[in-house]
């Protein structure tokens, strides 16, 4: 373990106020994830996986406790700083791919670069990344709806990588794919881990979780065995 973890959760609690009463999705969760770790987060539905994912992805702030990403306290950051951190430090890969439907495959990958540099990209970086995940130039002009699920997830991976984030956050990345395509996607993720990325994988598929170096199991908002 390196001295300072890239992600640190300390006694994170997330409570939702529902009409039926308060619901605690995460209950005093503490977790350190080191740089270049490959962690699978598992658990049945309702165990707090998604809530955990939102905390790790800076999409939400904890009710109590603190989340440190790259040494910075998420709760203390402004909304704009959190937006910039999502853009620069984290790559997101979703179960439903979540490509922008009005943009071509190429533009989807170019998009985070535009967000970061406020101008169109001329370095062909997006093309290189698309080729690296197996999308050639002719396919890159297509809109997401014209691509297969596996192709869409490859585009989404290229998009997640384009701003060179240190953390890759994957939410059921193979959930909408057949098993063969799923394993191809997992091979790409393993490659990223070998290149030095910190990969966090949320899944309920044991076979997929087996790719990770270690597995954290969530039950009722707590880490099992901790």
């Amino acid at each position, binding site marked *: 373990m390196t001295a300072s973890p890239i992600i640190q959760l300390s006694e994170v609690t997330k409570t939702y106020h529902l009409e039926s009463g308060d619901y605690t999705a995460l209950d005093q969760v503490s977790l350190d994830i080191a740089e270049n770790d490959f962690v699978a987060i598992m658990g049945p539905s309702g165990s707090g996986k998604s809530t955990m994912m*939102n905390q790790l*992805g800076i*999409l*939400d702030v904890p009710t109590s406790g603190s989340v440190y990403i790259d040494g910075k306290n998420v709760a203390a950051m402004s*909304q*704009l700083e959190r*937006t*910039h*951190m*999502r*853009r*620069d430090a984290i790559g*997101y890969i*979703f179960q439903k791919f*979540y*490509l*922008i*439907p*009005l*943009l071509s495959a190429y*533009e989807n990958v*170019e*998009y*985070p670069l*535009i*967000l*970061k540099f406020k*101008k*169109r990209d001329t370095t062909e970086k997006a093309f290189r990344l698309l080729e690296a995940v197996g999308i050639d130039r002719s396919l890159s002009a297509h809109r997401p709806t014209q691509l297969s699920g596996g192709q869409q997830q490859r585009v989404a991976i290229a*998009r997640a990588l384009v701003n060179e984030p240190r953390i890759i956050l994957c939410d059921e990345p193979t959930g909408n794919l057949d098993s063969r395509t799923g394993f191809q996607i997992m091979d790409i993720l393993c490659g990223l881990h070998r290149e030095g990325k910190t990969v966090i994988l949320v899944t309920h598929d044991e076979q997929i979780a087996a790719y990770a170096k270690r597995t954290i199991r969530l039950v009722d908002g707590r880490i099992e065995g901790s």
Partner: protein
Amino acid sequence: MPGDIFFSLAVRSVRLNFLRSMLAAIGIVIGVVAISSMGMLGTNMQLEVKDQLSATANTVVISSDTVRMGPPGFTPSSSSASGVTKTELTKITSVVSGNGTVIPIYETSGEFTINSIAGRGMIFGIDPGDIGKFLKINQTYGNGTTDLGLNEVLVGADIAQNFDLKVGDRIRIGSFSSSSRPELRIAGVLQPRGTVADGISTDNGIVVNSKWYTNQYGGSNEWSQVNVIVNNVDNISAVESAINAKINTNAKTPAVRITDATSQLATETSTLSTVTTFIMAIGGISLLVAAVSIFNVMMMSVSERIQEIGILLSIGTEKGEVRRMFVYEAFILGLLGAGIGGASSAVIGYSVVDAMIGTTAYFFQPASILYVPAAMLIGVVVCVISGVYPAWRASNMDPIDALRNE
């Protein structure tokens, strides 16, 4: 802006829902057409009246409050003093001296017959030497002259047109029932004058030699009005007050009334501009309706794209960038509407002005044609304002909730 990814997204969104977008933009088209063609119509009217009145802007009109309006065949008694008197005329002439030209005019309303067809109009008696100083002959009706003989007349443009007259034709002055209906020769046809501020509306009138006039109607040296055409229009108020000081010695019961084109112009244009503003406001209501439909379409666009907004926000798009995307979309709708509206209003406005005013001479003057870009700008601004709230709503969504939206 075309290189801006958010602008491209907005363009693609409009293209994706093209029919819906066009329907919403039609409201803007109608609003822009309404505002600009109404504005142009009013302005063209104003410009025409202004032009006609300012042709006589250098004229001071001095008239007596006693208006002579005799019945047909009526001969005013020469003993009753009415109109501007000889003494007053002398005073006016001495006051004006070298600063202008004094033209005394007799006038009455009367009947005339041309080829046994009766007509009615104003009859002006003017010294032949003065006629050419402010009235012009239209030579297309024959070789006319302002140098009237005793039994010659000049007829106005409308009469010449209505009776299909030419120089050398005959006209009888007086009604059918009248015992004496002297016949006069038409020596010329006057150019159209339109609305004038000097009181001499000749378009539906007849100009006769002042000697013939006093022989026929009497009232010698009792002029209906005296026009003073000043040489320098900047001196007009000085001339007016000098005449006023000389003649209207009793302030309570002034002997004569002194007016000029300025006051008449002010009244006419302010009336017209009030009317123009009013009809433009009615046109503006259609823009308000358009704003509602743009707002509606923008809200639809936002609610259909909640998940997309969630994607944008979660992967690091700033709120301002999301807002910009939707404001661009409203802006594009505005541009579409205003573009089509601007082109249509140039065409429609031209036809309306041509049909209602009869001339398009003023249409391309800046004051008139500028209504097109102005209305287009208003249309675009209305659209952008309508898009502000939907854009704000989109940018303030919670990315987690938005992503979950199917």
